[in-house]
């Protein structure tokens, strides 16, 4: 960090100013002039928090996607199907057991095993053949989508969040100050806060795993130079299996999260595949922090766009992607090889 500061003093100053402005916007009561321009503070805060939560969901889906790509150079276009499958299984498990929390480990394991099967039976046979992999994964996603349509039908599913997470909670952030002097605090859906906290914890966990453990060291070495890692005696196929299973499991968990605060229906698989592709392109292929930043940017642009410029909200995402591709084709945190 100090190195960055010394290297880019102007950038550092700009970033510091932006962070300060954002913090002020969030915590300070707004003067009337600002309310006129941006609308009530509650709207802005909710859109911002909504964007961050949406970003958290995108991060869950995209981090597995980017990890798999980074290590195996394998564009898994069936990733969206894993998301949707996880959501459906999560619905069944939480209905059967009555527990939302139990659904998470169960789904993680089931979808991770499916991911291992995919890696072991399908992708290992076509290592390094991008075109074949693309075709095969598109085919798999079509087959999986039809199987899910057959089994779960065309209707929408929502997963019920547990009672202790239903309804809104009051946050210690000032929303408005009434003329009478009463302070109104921001109310925000509890389940979204839980999702946000879980996503941050998971992100930190992944960073620790990648940077502080032996497995993480192997994965990072694999991302940089697979052949050399294999040559130094590491059984790289096992590393591949573990990473694929982990990435698939994350997509499955994201399915539960998505089913809890959005809904599950046929077509969501491609929507989330597209979202994670955009996130990964913006953030940089193969980079976990890149996925986090990309997810945050896309989530915020969708939510703020929906509230402040509903007509164009659909375009913003792709404008950002086009901008990144034009000026930094490797992605915000991607590396050129």
């Amino acid at each position, binding site marked *: 960090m100090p190195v960055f500061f010394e290297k880019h003093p102007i950038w550092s100053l700009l970033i510091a100013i932006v962070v300060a402005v954002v913090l002020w916007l969030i915590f300070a009561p707004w003067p009337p002039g600002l309310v006129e321009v941006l609308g009530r503070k509650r709207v802005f805060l909710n*859109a911002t928090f909504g964007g961050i939560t*949406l970003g958290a969901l995108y991060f869950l889906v995209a981090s597995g996607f980017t990890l798999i790509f980074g290590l195996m150079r394998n564009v898994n276009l069936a990733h969206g199907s894993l998301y949707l499958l996880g959501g459906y299984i999560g619905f069944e498990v939480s209905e059967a057991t009555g527990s939302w929390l139990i659904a998470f480990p169960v789904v993680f394991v089931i979808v991770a095993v499916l991911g291992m099967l995919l890696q072991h039976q399908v992708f290992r046979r076509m290592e390094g053949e991008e075109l074949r992999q693309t075709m095969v994964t598109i085919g798999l996603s079509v087959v999986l989508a039809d199987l899910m349509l057959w089994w779960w039908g065309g209707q*929408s599913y929502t997963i019920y969040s547990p009672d202790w997470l239903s309804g809104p909670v009051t946050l210690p952030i000032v929303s408005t100050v009434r003329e009478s002097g009463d302070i109104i605090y921001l109310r925000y*859906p509890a389940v979204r806060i839980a999702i946000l906290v879980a996503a941050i914890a998971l992100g930190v966990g992944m960073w620790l795993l990648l940077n502080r453990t032996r497995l993480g060291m192997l994965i990072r070495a694999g991302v940089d130079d697979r052949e050399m890692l294999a040559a130094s005696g590491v059984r790289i196929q096992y590393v591949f299996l573990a990473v694929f299973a982990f990435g698939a499991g994350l997509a499955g968990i994201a399915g539960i999260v998505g089913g809890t605060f*959005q809904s599950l229906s046929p077509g969501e698989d491609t929507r989330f595949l597209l979202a994670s592709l955009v996130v990964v392109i913006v953030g940089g292929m193969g980079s976990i922090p890149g996925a986090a930043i990309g997810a945050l940017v896309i989530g915020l642009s969708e939510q703020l766009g929906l509230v402040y410029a509903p007509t164009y909200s659909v375009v913003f995402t792709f404008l950002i992607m086009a901008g990144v591709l034009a000026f930094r084709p490797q992605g915000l945190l991607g590396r050129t090889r």
Partner: protein
Amino acid sequence: MKKALLATAMAAAIALPSMAMAQDNTIKIGILVALEGAFAEGGADGVRNVELALSQANNMAGGKKIETIVAPTDTTPDTTVRQARKLIEQDGVDIIIGPLSGSEGIAMRDYAKTIPNNTVINGISGALETTWVDPADNFFRFNLDGAQWGAGLGSYVVDEKGWKRVATVAADYSFGYTNFLGFAVDFCRSGGEIVERFWVPLGSSDFGGVIAAMPEDIDAIYLGVGGTDAINFLNQYEQAGAETNLIGGTIMADQTVLTSRGRAKEALVGTPTSGALAEDNPDPAWQNYVKAYQDAFPEDERFPSPSLFGVGYYVATLAAIQALNAVDGDLSDGQNAFREALATTPLETPLGTVELNENRQASGTVYINEVVEGPGGTLVNKMVGKAENVNQTLGMSADEFRAMGLPSRDTPDCAALAQGG
């Protein structure tokens, strides 16, 4: 073997057109219906209902045998016109029944002008413009349009529920505007006030920001979204605390939403909506029709009761049969007598009596439903009222209605309506 097959096929191909021409005692009806895409299930119900109406008339009308040809579309206007052209030019049909969705209807209005010797009877498409802006002489619509479906709901919520201040969230496309217009005209003239309007793109999945932006001192939120968007909204609305009442547009509380799995839909209990039909309508005409529908098809090949799309095609077929009977099947002279009969004779339908206006657009009954809990935790629509004789201009004069402007984000102007009414 292959050659023999080919020869037979060729012989059949040569023989078929001459056979069709030889049969003067049949009338050919083309059914233009969406059988692919989002409305495929509803489209299939439309075909079933045409069959039902024809079989009730023993496949005869005006002393002639009725033959039908199904032309499937995918709800896009260009496919629709292509299929309609095929019906007219290749199959030689006399009458087209269809299409199903709004933009298809507008395309068919324009196509109808190029086939002045044939007649088009709308299936269930509901765009206002189809029979309002530059209508075609040979296009008839026996169902109400999207704006009419919204009528009656506004006065109901003001008078019965006492909800006078609403914010609206509706889908940012043609049907969203049109259906909202029907609600708003009625609501504003009854003394209601629209505090704020939100337009959301089709396919929005996260409404958190919009829900937060709801003004604080409102009596209800009007929701003009449908399908998955509606479910997402309800889910997030409940998670945000579900603080006020809801009013639903025509597609808000349909079967897609009511049969969804999970608890999001429970926020809908007590929500009034308006539309073309009420499932529990006690009118004997409706009850008999539902029974005939249920008896005609095995349970796994139909809906529990006829869908909106099915009813539309059923009524359109009834209209064709009645008019053909009136003219004894005489379609000569560019079908003039037949059109005259269509335009002037009131039609008895399961939804009540329908009459056409000078634009060949139906006036009829709109039903107000409320979502209630049914047996076994399911949600059902319960009829709570109806608005009769809703016409194309929603009770205004044609000039007033035209002056208001076509449905858009800012039309209608609520304050102006409140003063005028």
